[in-house]
């Protein structure tokens, strides 16, 4: 429970509460849109037709994770140019929330892959790249933990984020070549396994549902991102006050 003092000293309290409620409602809307509003996929049958509905949540996680990782790059470049910790907090919050949604991609993707590809996991280029990206950002979080000075930490983490981001396209292309030289084919549906034609074959309600769920996930992302960002700002403020106190 919050006290009156907390509410008064924190100008973000009201807006964030509203955003939280909005994010909760958005999730209800996303579930409604994905499970009830969208019509069945005509080109699929049986389990695959049911499983296809997870696509909306899969795509929602995908977009938000990408936004999170892009924010980390923006924050890192911002820190290296401006040298203010605000940018570093944007990068850190972006990575943490982005990684959370990246795990969402993995989980929804595996659940969807089992009925469709008959396996939870395959070393498809997209899957390889996603795994490596998650590992890179887990390493980023561990790396931050190992340093005490806030500015050193911000600088080194920003440099690492830039280097890590550079290697992602290489991973994608090398995985793509790797698999085309050694094709791994499941039931001859490798074209679908590339994940490209799902969007190409969406019907009218599917397109609308996709738009709705992506918007809802972005609202959820914003709520989580602002919470984490504010938390980091408060932590930093405590650190400032502590330094002031012991000087």
């Amino acid at each position, binding site marked *: 429970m919050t006290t009156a003092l907390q509410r008064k000293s924190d100008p973000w309290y009201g807006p964030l509460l509203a955003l939280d409620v909005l994010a909760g409602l958005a999730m209800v809307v996303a579930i409604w849109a994905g499970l009830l509003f969208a019509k069945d996929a005509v080109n699929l049958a049986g389990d695959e037709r049911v499983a296809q509905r997870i696509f909306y949540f899969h795509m929602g996680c995908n977009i938000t994770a990408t936004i999170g990782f892009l924010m980390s790059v923006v924050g890192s470049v911002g820190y290296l140019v401006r040298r203010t910790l605000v940018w570093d907090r944007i990068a850190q919050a972006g990575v943490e929330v982005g990684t959370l949604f990246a795990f969402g991609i993995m989980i929804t993707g595996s659940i969807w892959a089992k009925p469709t590809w008959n396996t939870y996991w395959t070393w498809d280029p997209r899957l390889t790249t996603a795994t490596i990206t998650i590992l*890179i950002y887990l390493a980023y979080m561990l790396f931050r933990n190992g340093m005490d000075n806030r500015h050193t930490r911000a600088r080194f983490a920003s440099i690492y984020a830039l*280097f890590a981001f550079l290697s992602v396209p290489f991973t994608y292309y090398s995985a793509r070549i790797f698999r085309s030289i050694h094709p791994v084919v499941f039931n001859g549906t490798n074209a679908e396994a590339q994940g490209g034609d799902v969007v190409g074959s969406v019907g009218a309600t599917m397109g609308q549902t996709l738009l709705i769920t992506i918007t809802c996930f972005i609202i959820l992302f914003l709520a989580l991102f602002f919470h984490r960002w504010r938390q980091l700002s408060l932590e930093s403020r405590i650190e400032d006050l502590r330094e002031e106190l012991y000087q």
Partner: protein
Amino acid sequence: MKQQMSSDSLGGLLGRPVEMRTGGGFAAFLRKVWAVAAKDIRAELRAKEVASTMIVFGLLAVIIFGLAFDLRVPKSSMVVPGILWVIVLFAGVLGLHRSFGAEVDRETLAGLLLAPVEPSAIYFGKLASNLLYLFLLELFVLPTLLVMFDTNLFQFYILLGLFLGTLGYAEVGTFFAALTANSRARESMLPVLLLPVMVPVFMAGVGLTAGILDGRPISGLYSWLVILAMFDLIFFVAAYWIVDLIWDGI
């Protein structure tokens, strides 16, 4: 007067005054790089702690892989590409963290940074010595693989791929070694940071080596060499640009 005396005596003690030599063009830069590399190699020749550890680990790893796969794999050339690149990556991690870790442990990093050279010269000097250690490691591992697995890796394109991959590995590895030198638990932090970023080099290296061993025509394998070369080039430029930022606060 007093000051004059002290500066005089100091001058006599130190020889000529130290100047920051930033000019002098490319040849002068290369001389500075070589000075840093030569210092590292001399220290290594006396202490024998990095290259020797890497080489012994590499030989041990070949033997352990040999025990693991013996008679379990129909054709040993199926697993040799993976074994080669795994050994290079893991043995490299073992040695790379020493290149800046040793400087921090002996409290000589500040002295190195005070040397009248650009930070990038320090980085490239360390890169040169690390590259030398990695090549030495490969010089020992390749014949051992030939003996243990009866697979001849001494083919032009395999060696070219190994050269490019090692170069990219040393570039990023030296950079991350500098980055992690001051953090707690740098020995365990370096592989966690480094290995995910090295995945493209690993996949391209394994793909190329396997393709050559399978007897595929090189025309279908050029894309691997292109990936390795692009990786080397991009991280070379990125490291040159960004390396100044690592030390600007210390």
